């Protein structure tokens, strides 16, 4: 962790820039909506204005709260995620229409549209965003709750694994808590709580953890007795893999821990140890548990049969979709993304790639990269180590999650069931990610805020006479 930072040049608020970019982001979402309507029905969709105004009103609230409570925060974060969220809403709306058409053709009952629900979740996401900014005026408050956050995170993470499958299992992964018609994925919130814990814990322990032990092949290995925390994190992540049957959450959780350990100690050996532990653990798990083995098989041999009717169906359909999209895409509303199972959640990237092509997909990935860059920039400029670790961890978590999802859909790594932040249909993910960005804004605000004027501005010592 570098101790010296250049002071941010000329602290400016730049809220006007944020507002302009927000308008641009909402206009993009409306243009996408219009484009879907024009392609499917030859007319502008009737609810286009209402949709645009709804999204616009939500982000205006967010903007006003940022103006009031975090005036120096980064001007790009909110517009970027607004654009992603808006585009996600349009893609879900578009898939709703396609699914309804398909259901009508085959005579099945028409499924209820998900876009309305997602708009509601967006509203709740903005509410959480506003709540975090209003209640948490100083990110250092979180450091006091290091161990509380750690315990809460572990409980949230472990809860679905311990509950009976009837409550927690959806499509083979035990990640959910379903009560009535309402379901949440506590892992998404656990992610945030655990990052707060890691940041607070590593701030106090990083001096010990960066002590060098034996030097092997130009790399300083840590002392054997300091391996405890990384082994615990490894065991927990393997526990998720085994009991909750989810490779994605397991990889995400362990990856965040190792990355934060590396940021805190600046020792490359932790990365190597982490990678080695995870690979060996995953290999062992693939030998012992059939569901992990299955995932690996799908990844390595998706075209095992002539007609992909085996388990790789979803992945193969997604790949066909991406291929269909090519460089420029089929155009919004003109592809057939509904052919991919779970196109709204795990495979929304395939929908995006099919209808907007590689050009659109890369633009969206760049938007993610910019969000991550803004987060890391805040971490670089932060002076207090807790803020540094927290911001870096939050930004890295977002990057890793996008990598795992996009890598899985494009068959770079084994497919796992994670949501694409802000784009996918899913309330828990949307809420947790809006909260994540609120935390980043809070850190960024404190970093870019000009230092208070020193009270003693005369250089001389004053003489006090009685």
């Amino acid at each position: 962790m570098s101790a010296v930072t250049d002071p941010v040049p000329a602290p400016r608020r730049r809220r006007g820039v944020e507002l302009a970019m927000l308008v641009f982001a909402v206009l993009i979402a409306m243009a996408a909506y219009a484009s879907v309507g024009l392609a499917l029905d030859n007319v502008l969709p009737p609810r286009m204005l209402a949709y645009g105004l709804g999204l616009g009103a939500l982000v205006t609230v967010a903007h006003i709260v940022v103006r009031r409570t975090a005036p120096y925060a980064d001007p790009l974060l909110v517009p970027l995620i607004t654009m992603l969220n808006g585009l996600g809403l349009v893609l879900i709306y578009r898939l709703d229409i396609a699914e309804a058409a398909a259901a009508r053709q085959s005579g099945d009952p028409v499924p209820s549209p998900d876009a309305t629900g997602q708009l509601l979740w967006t509203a709740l996401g903005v509410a959480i965003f506003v709540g975090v900014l209003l209640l948490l005026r100083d990110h250092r408050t979180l450091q006091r709750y290091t161990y509380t956050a750690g315990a809460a995170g572990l409980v949230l993470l472990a809860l679905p694994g311990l509950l009976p499958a009837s409550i927690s299992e959806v499509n083979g992964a035990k990640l959910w808590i379903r009560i009535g018609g309402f379901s949440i994925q506590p892992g998404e919130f656990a992610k945030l709580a655990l990052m707060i814990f890691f940041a607070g814990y590593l701030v106090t322990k990083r001096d010990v953890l960066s002590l060098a032990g034996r030097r092997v092949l130009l790399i300083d290995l840590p002392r054997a007795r300091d391996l405890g925390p990384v082994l615990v994190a490894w065991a927990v992540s393997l526990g998720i893999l085994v009991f909750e049957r989810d490779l994605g959450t397991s990889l995400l959780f362990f990856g965040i821990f190792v990355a934060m350990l590396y940021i805190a100690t600046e020792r490359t050996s932790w990365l190597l140890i982490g990678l080695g532990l995870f690979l060996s653990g995953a290999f062992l798990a693939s030998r012992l548990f059939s569901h992990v083995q299955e995932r690996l098989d799908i990844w390595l041999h998706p075209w095992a049969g002539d007609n992909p009717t085996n388990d790789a169906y979803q992945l193969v359909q997604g790949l066909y979709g991406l291929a269909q999209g090519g460089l420029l895409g089929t155009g919004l509303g003109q592809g057939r993304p509904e052919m991919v199972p779970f196109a709204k959640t795990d495979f929304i990237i395939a929908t995006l790639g099919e209808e907007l092509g590689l050009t659109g997909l890369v633009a969206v990935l760049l938007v993610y990269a910019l969000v991550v860059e803004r987060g890391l920039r805040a971490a670089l400029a932060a002076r207090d180590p807790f803020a540094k670790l927290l911001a870096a961890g939050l930004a890295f978590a977002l990057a890793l999650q996008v990598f795992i999802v996009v890598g899985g859909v494009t068959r770079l790594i084994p497919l796992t069931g994670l949501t694409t932040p802000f784009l996918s249909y899913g309330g828990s993910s949307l809420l947790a990610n809006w909260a994540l960005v609120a935390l980043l804004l809070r850190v960024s605000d404190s970093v870019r805020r000009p230092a208070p004027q020193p009270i003693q501005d005369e250089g001389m010592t004053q003489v006090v006479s009685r």
Partner: protein
Amino acid sequence: MTELTLTLIRLAFLAVLWLFVMAALSVIRTDLFGPRSAPKVPSRANADARPAKAPTRGKRGSPRKVLVTHGPLSGTSLNLGESPITIGRANDATLVLSDDYASSRHARLFLRDGQWLVEDLGSTNGTYLDRAKVTRPTPVPLGVPIRIGRTVLELRK
């Protein structure tokens, strides 16, 4: 809708998407370098609106940055604005030293009447300007070493 119109809409949407990315990048660019350095010739509107901007540059020959020439942070530089710079091992110092021989709040550089002064903040091992111990706020000429623990700093243009 003809095929052609749909193709045009499709391409236009992709263009707008990239325009958004470009706009975001340009925001980052102005964030990094500030709008002042962006246009070489200041626009008239800008010059009219903010005539008071000029003095921030200071007179010719005034230092622009402080450079660490020796010690653990050798090579680090810090741009000088108008705000004072605190130097020490404390986390809230402007220049955080990882130097065992420096105090947590060791010294302070501040601007008075267009001149940078150095002041010792009651450090254990003292602050030296060239060879002389700093006992009260002392003006710092360009390129004269300030020694703090094992760290040596200089003001540079």
